[in-house]
């Protein structure tokens, strides 16, 4: 048993027992859907319908339905792609990197955060595929022999690296998530009363019994997967940033991009985790598992990554001036004072200024403030990608080809539609899957929970002695 300092705040409040955890998490899986959930799903399905319609228009009439022009060939599509991939990164950070750092607070949020990763990557993948124009030839991105229609793919291209990075990221994250779900599916299976539920969860749990040998292997597999996912997640956004950085467009051709993109990805991802978790804990009454301590810890990550992003913005600007390259200098002056100044300053306000409010403990621990700031960060990070992509492209080397980009209704529809797709998937997950990792929370319960039987101790993390009394 590990020692936990008594000044640490408890990670599970309300004096829960092991059985309480099972009950609290399985409740919404077993109960009939509540009205709030159904209403939320209805809204998400409207979004999904918008997505289907906009995708149909894009496929049937071609990407001329979007607002792209000869000068701005990448706009909302790639902005949305990078935004969604970035959001996904927080899930892997929580489940893999924090596991390696042995951060116990990850246990109650990792399940939902990993689900978020998977759904976000699904949404992200829609954009490059739709942008291909002829998605039915999407298999041309795979290294297939020339008889399939294309030459061997170009392994020197970051766009191809992206294909490998995103598909590896998606499949490894899915496996990691599923490995963690197996024991919890077994718990639901063993409680299930209906024949359909029992069979469905039996199949999903793959016959898990929880034997000591299986747990030993399960822990090994989780640890190795965490070790693999850690460099993987860093590589994914590095490669995404190289889509830009290896080109020769002023504003894109910078060596700062990989770390800057990774920090931004984690920043936006944590904001989305907070947005989702604040809603989920309220809707499913999980306040004892996702506590203010969790919210505060995530807010600290937001300050750190938000500040890295802020320093990166300033560094970029400084280097543009210091480089002495007039095109580079113009690209940055144009960002801040050109026709897209409002996008640049929205980005600066939302990403650099608002997260600094988290230096105040009261704001860090306020759910309302956290929720609002998390939305600001989501918006700011979308603008960051928009600024990088559109403002660097719209005024290129020939002033005669300068142009502005404005989105069409279909552009907006595809973007709003992926949000609908994301929430549809997330709501289905929240209803039918255990949103909290039961076995990991049970594993930390003894060392990190609040014990009700000791009134003097109640607000502190408890030590071994007080546990011996509560668990005779």
């Amino acid at each position, binding site marked *: 048993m590990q020692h936990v300092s008594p000044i640490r705040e408890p990670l599970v409040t309300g004096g829960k027992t092991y059985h309480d955890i*099972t009950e609290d998490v399985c409740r919404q899986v077993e109960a009939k859907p509540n009205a709030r959930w159904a209403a939320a799903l209805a809204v998400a399905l409207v979004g999904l319908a918008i997505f289907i319609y906009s995708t149909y228009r894009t496929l049937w009439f071609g990407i001329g339905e979007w607002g792209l022009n000869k000068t701005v060939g990448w706009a909302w599509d790639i902005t949305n792609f990078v935004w969604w991939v970035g959001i996904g990164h927080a899930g892997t950070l929580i489940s893999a990197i924090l596991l390696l750092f042995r951060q116990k607070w990850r246990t109650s949020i990792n399940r939902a955060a990993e689900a978020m990763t998977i759904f976000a990557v699904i949404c992200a993948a829609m954009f490059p595929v739709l942008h291909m124009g002829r998605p039915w030839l999407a298999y041309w991105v795979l290294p297939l022999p020339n008889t399939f229609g294309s030459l061997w793919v170009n392994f020197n291209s970051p766009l191809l690296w992206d294909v490998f*990075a995103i598909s590896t990221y998606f499949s*490894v994250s899915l496996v990691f998530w599923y490995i963690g779900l197996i*024991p919890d599916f077994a718990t639901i299976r063993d409680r299930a009363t209906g024949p359909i539920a029992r069979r469905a969860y039996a199949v*999903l749990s*793959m016959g898990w019994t*929880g*034997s*000591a040998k299986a747990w030993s292997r399960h822990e090994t597999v989780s640890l190795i997967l965490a070790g693999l996912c850690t460099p993987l997640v860093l590589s994914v956004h590095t490669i995404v940033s190289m889509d830009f950085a290896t080109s020769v467009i002023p504003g894109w051709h910078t060596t700062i991009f990989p770390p800057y993109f990774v920090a931004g990805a984690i920043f936006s991802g944590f904001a989305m985790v907070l947005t989702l978790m604040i809603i989920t804990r309220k809707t499913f009454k999980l306040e004892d598992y996702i506590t203010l301590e969790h919210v505060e810890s995530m807010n600290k990550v937001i300050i750190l990554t938000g500040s890295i992003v802020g320093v990166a913005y300033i560094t970029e600007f400084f280097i543009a001036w210091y480089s002495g390259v007039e095109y580079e200098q113009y690209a940055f002056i144009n960002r801040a004072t050109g026709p897209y100044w409002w996008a640049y300053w929205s980005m600066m306000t939302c990403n650099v200024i608002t997260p600094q409010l988290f230096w105040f403990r009261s704001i860090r621990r306020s759910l309302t403030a956290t929720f609002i700031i998390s939305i600001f960060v989501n918006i700011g990070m979308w603008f960051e990608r928009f600024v990088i992509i559109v403002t660097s492209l719209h005024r290129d080397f020939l002033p005669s080809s300068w142009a502005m980009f404005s989105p069409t209704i279909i552009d907006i529809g595809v973007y709003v539609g992926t949000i609908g797709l994301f929430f549809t998937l997330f709501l289905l997950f929240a209803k039918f899957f255990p949103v909290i990792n039961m076995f990991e929370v049970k594993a930390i319960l003894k060392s990190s929970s609040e014990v009700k039987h000791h009134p003097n101790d109640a607000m502190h993390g408890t030590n071994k002695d007080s546990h011996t009394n509560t668990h005779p």
Partner: protein
Amino acid sequence: MTKKFVLGIYDDEDVLLQAIENVRAAGTKIYEVFSPYPIHGIDDVLGIKRSRLPIVAFLCGLFGMCFALWMQIWMLGFDWPMIIGGKPHIALPAFIPVTFELTVLCSAFGMVITFFIVTKLKPSIKVNVFDKRSTDDKYVMAIEVKEGVTDISALNNLLRSNGAIEVNEKEVIK
């Protein structure tokens, strides 16, 4: 053929760990211990050896790396050489990302598939859980009763004296 098991049910992990040590010290072979979550230190008292899955992961990763390098070098260097941006046909630095991704992919999938096979996890409707509470909040120690033995009171006493809150019998058709 039916096998008979005696199940000791425990409700505290520390009591369980002590019980495992005592039962093993008494010369009784433990068939299996089931718990709702991984218990720290149970591997040592049960004598479970460290899993060799990391070796599988390493070998699969090594295979993935070699395969990725071979694929890129052969395709762009030998099968259909093209001049791309004036770079050499075999531009190794540019091959690093794909090599890395395939290393991770093969390593992860190789290890997880091996894990499913050796742990005998597969999708099936049939479930062989001895006591359903072991996926909720109880720990179950299963001891196989030798053929011909009908009196289990000795086992019962052994388990109860070591803190079992319940002792049950269970027959399993193998």
